[in-house]
């Protein structure tokens, strides 16, 4: 193998600047998409276990469609197709006046894809942990809506903090898709450095370590939440 190592390029101002700004965008997109995913997933997941047939069907449709179209295709639909099929004035606004159009589109697309996965977890948590408590909650004299809001939902949600860790990690990885529509996040910037310097080893190693560190932070944060209020805390409480 014929390769000239040069780790110093990682400390040259230009390239270091690119890589750090890439890391920053990856973190921003990941967090924003995760916020969207949590909100949408919570909504769709509870709708999926609601007594209303219409709400159940609608949420089921969302989950089935968004889980079964590749996230990259969804991203292209939001970015290339949406501005063409909406009324002209809105399409123009999307193309011209939306601030940071690529980043916003990526966050929406990744958030809605991850949201469909979160929704499945929420539903599973409610079905497995929350719903069995319903009769007991009703027996204490709570009305059905109260029982759902005070017992079934919170306990169901606390149980799924563990499984949500991997959904969070998937969201971080999905943020790399945004490079296809021109967002210069971590993976894009490392490729960028490789193209300029031919030092692919150094650039991709930086990106790899970046993702590993973000992954460790996510795992650590979710474990902290799990121990404080999540499934781990639930299991510890005396029966």
């Amino acid at each position, binding site marked *: *193998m*014929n*390769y000239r190592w040069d780790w110093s390029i990682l400390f040259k101002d230009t390239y270091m600047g690119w890589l750090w700004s890439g890391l920053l965008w990856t973190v921003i997109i990941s967090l924003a998409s995760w916020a969207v995913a949590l909100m949408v997933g919570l909504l769709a997941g509870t709708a999926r276990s609601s007594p209303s047939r219409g709400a159940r069907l609608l949420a089921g449709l969302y989950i*089935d*469609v968004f*889980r*079964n*179209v*590749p*996230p*990259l*295709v*969804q991203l*292209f*639909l939001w970015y*290339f*197709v949406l501005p*063409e*099929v909406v009324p002209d004035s809105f399409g123009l606004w999307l193309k011209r006046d939306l601030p940071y159009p690529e980043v916003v589109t990526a966050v929406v697309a990744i958030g809605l894809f991850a949201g469909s996965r979160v929704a499945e977890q929420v539903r599973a948590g409610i079905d497995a942990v929350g719903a069995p408590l319903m009769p007991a909650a009703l027996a204490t004299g709570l009305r059905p809506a109260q029982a759902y809001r005070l017992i079934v939902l919170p306990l169901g949600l606390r149980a799924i903090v563990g499984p949500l860790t991997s959904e969070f*990690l998937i969201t*971080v*990885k*999905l*943020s*790399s*898709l945004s*490079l*296809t529509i021109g967002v210069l996040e971590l*993976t894009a910037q*490392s*490729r960028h450095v*490789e193209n300029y310097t031919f030092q*692919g*080893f150094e650039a*991709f190693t930086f*990106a*790899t370590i970046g*993702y*590993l560190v973000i*992954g460790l932070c996510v795992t650590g944060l979710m474990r902290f939440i799990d121990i404080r209020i999540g499934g781990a805390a639930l299991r510890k409480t005396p029966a």
Partner: protein
Amino acid sequence: MSDFDWGIIARSSAFLAEGMALSALLVLVATVGGLILGFGLALMRLSSHRWLSVPASTYVTVMRTLPLVLVLFWFYFLVPLAIGRPVGSLTSALLAFVLFEAAFYCEIVRAGISNVRHGQSDAGLATGLRRAQVLRLIILPQALRAMMPLILNQIVIVFQDTSLVYVVSLHDFLTAASVVASRDGRATEMYALVAVVYLVICLGTTKAAEFYRKGLPS
């Protein structure tokens, strides 16, 4: 909104079919290669020797934390360097897919094997079977049946993942469609078609896996 030209689909169908063939090839190689390698990794992870289990679990953790796009770039860069001459991006992509998906198949196989009750292998050993025989005759048949829905699920994910070869300019189904879309300015028609085709195939397989899982004795 009236100027859609759905005829573009018929006119580009041969080109799109070639793309789909490449997607299918990627799924096939990634799944067969990934399962074989994943099986080896799973046995290493379950081993009681730490020098086997630690490298395997490190490998799996690292692969599962990295985005596939980055892994594709890594291999696109590394493979020609390792071989010492330029190779097509298909070779790099195939290798990247096998090594990446192996980490995910490893976890499926590992869960499948460790879900077979411990008493089963003790009983097998007590009847005088050797370890390899216990694994092949007693554990694996039961583990495989439990793993099938998860493997089907993973195949759906791999199929969706293949669309990412877009970043190394390989003409899979999505990339073929995007080439037509930008050449003829028909993004709406092409991406709508791509979404529907993926949806039908993936949803169908997902539902089949669910159906199969319900039929399993729990």
